[in-house]
């Protein structure tokens, strides 16, 4: 509350971004000189995508206290959406770009209108809200598909084909990542309105259900859903491999900065205080439902972005890789790094993938399956030795927040006072 010297704050930002850029240049140099072969650079890209995914989950679970197993569902939505946009584009069909972009924009406009409309009534039930927003979404995408797809698609094609090929490809990739993130955000908003109202455990189970639904839909993209190019349970092939280190790095940097600024603002205080005590948060004037929804949507947008990045690195998507068992991966990373520690997630995200997919893949012949012995053991030992996570409450100076992270409950429970 005291006037904090602004200069200090800027120095921390400059140092953080500066060090980040140095790392960026070093890795880029290693890739260019082939010191980092394509296997290891792929591991690093994967690590970054998983880190973005886990940062989103940390916002939802670590900072806002809503236990979610839905992160992989949004990751899948982002991956398939982005992949579909670029797949169609490279096959001469610009409608993907047009539909997702115009649909998302229309939905946003619709949501703002619906929110303003619903605000005129007191205590609208969540199901009523959900119905309104769902209709708004369906309406927006119907217009996008039926009316706007053709003309906007032609327009996009005309504009982009006038540009040099490399540039137009980068623009399409940007739109694809944006579209994947936007769709994940829209779905999380719709899903979050009725479901976030539930308590934390019930919410967790519902999100597990969500991930399973997404996986089942992806299994049937060519039969139930009208997307033959996704090829259902056979897996989607032919996605352009457009993910490069600059895309990976700057996406991660953007996510870290956005998340950090949210957490440092008063919205961030609202999000964290909801985790600590919903009732108390309500009593100091925080709109608990909005705080939860905001954390959930932003976290899911990160997941969608991570999905797009991963899809265009792997160039192949299979529904099986979005199985709900996978949704424990970001959870492990977040708990491992420390619930409510961005630094922890940043560190653990990379370490986890490097360890699990890099080092443990290189076990000597005859010992390959030991991978599945070593990594559960790491989990066990870790949880026994450092239950508060690798970083605990530590944050890098740039990321340090006003509110401390979650502490062990034993220390925090107030004494029980007899009435």
């Amino acid at each position, binding site marked *: *509350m*005291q006037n904090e010297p602004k200069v200090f704050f800027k120095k921390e930002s400059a140092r953080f971004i500066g060090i980040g850029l140095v790392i960026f240049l070093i890795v880029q140099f290693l890739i260019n000189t082939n010191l980092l072969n394509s296997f290891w650079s792929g591991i690093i890209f994967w690590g970054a995508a998983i880190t973005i995914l886990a940062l989103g989950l940390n916002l939802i679970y670590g900072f806002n206290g809503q236990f979610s197993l839905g992160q992989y569902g949004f990751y899948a939505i982002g991956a398939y959406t982005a992949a579909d946009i670029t797949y169609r584009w490279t096959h001469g069909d610009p409608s993907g770009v047009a539909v997702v972009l115009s649909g998302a924009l229309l939905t946003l406009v619709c949501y703002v209108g619906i929110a303003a409309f619903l605000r005129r009534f*007191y*205590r609208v039930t969540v199901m009523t809200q959900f119905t309104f927003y769902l209709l708004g979404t369906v309406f927006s995408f119907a217009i996008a598909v039926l009316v706007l797809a053709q003309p906007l698609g032609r327009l996009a094609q005309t504009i982009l084909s006038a540009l040099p090929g490399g540039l137009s490809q980068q623009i399409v990739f940007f739109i694809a990542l944006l579209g994947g993130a936007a769709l994940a955000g829209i779905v999380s908003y719709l899903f979050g309105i009725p479901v976030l109202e539930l308590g934390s455990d019930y919410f967790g189970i519902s999100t597990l259900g969500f991930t399973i639904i997404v996986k089942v839909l992806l299994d049937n993209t060519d039969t139930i859903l009208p997307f033959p190019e996704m090829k259902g349970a056979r897996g989607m092939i032919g996605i352009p491999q457009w993910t490069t280190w600059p895309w990976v790095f700057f996406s991660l940097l953007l996510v870290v900065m956005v998340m950090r600024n949210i957490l440092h603002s*008063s919205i961030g*205080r*609202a999000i964290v*205080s909801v985790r*600590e*005590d919903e*009732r*108390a*948060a*309500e*009593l*100091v*004037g*925080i*709109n*608990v439902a909005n705080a939860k929804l905001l954390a959930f949507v932003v976290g899911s947008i990160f997941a969608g972005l991570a999905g797009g990045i991963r899809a265009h690195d792997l160039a192949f998507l299979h529904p099986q890789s979005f199985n709900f068992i996978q949704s424990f991966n970001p959870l492990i990373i977040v708990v491992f790094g420390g619930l409510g520690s961005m630094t922890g997630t940043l560190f653990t995200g990379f370490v986890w993938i490097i360890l699990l997919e890099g080092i443990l893949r290189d076990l000597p012949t005859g010992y390959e399956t030991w991978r599945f012995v070593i990594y559960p053991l790491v989990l066990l030992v870790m949880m026994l030795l450092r239950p508060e996570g690798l970083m605990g409450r530590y944050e890098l100076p740039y990321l340090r927040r*006003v*509110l*401390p992270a*979650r*502490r062990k409950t034993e*220390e*925090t*429970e*107030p*004494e029980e*006072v*007899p*009435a």
Partner: protein
Amino acid sequence: MALLEIKNLIVAYGAIRALHGISFHVNEGEIVTLIGANGAGKSTTLRTISGLQSAESGQISYNNQDITRAEASAIVQRGLIHVPEGRRIFAPLTVRENLEMGAFTRKNKQEVADSMEHVFHLFPRLKERMEQTGGTLSGGEQQMLAVARALMAKPRLLLMDEPSMGLAPILVEEIFDIIQEINKQGVTILLVEQNAHMALSVANRGYVIEIGAIELEGEAHDLAENPRVRTAYLGGG
């Protein structure tokens, strides 16, 4: 004119009715107390006023505006602050951070800093504990923190639910002194208490609530003399 007016308020938890249509009012500048036994509906009344619980029917008007169905967060912004039963402080946050959270709805940093100064003047012990986490405070200090946090929101009307619960007699005295002090500084107070003796000694007026209905009302000193109140709530004649 009444700052807070409750008309025929009915509240139910599922099929069970907690309040069977109660009506009362609180004038600006008063201390009004609701006394009654466990389960009479005192806390439910406060929770409904502050928007934590929704009313089935009836009307709550505050400052001549109907707030019956307003959101809890919107009610806080109007200066109607609830100090809940069992304190509900943020245990992992420090005393200072708890107080800052209390001022969540206020934007002017200078005013918030002034409020903090004022609160520390009222509760010097909290100033000593400023960097300690809320969960490590004693019961009495936690209660003081809960009141202090409410004051950080610059209340016009303070709803206090059982501020004396679980406190040693000497701390009860201290809390009630502070309640009177806050009231002198212009904050209207609606006090719910089981300790009817203390509550009636500081209040201007009081209401006796029994099984979800108002049974008696009047000036605090009249109620304290009332034979029914004396036998039921003040420990015999």
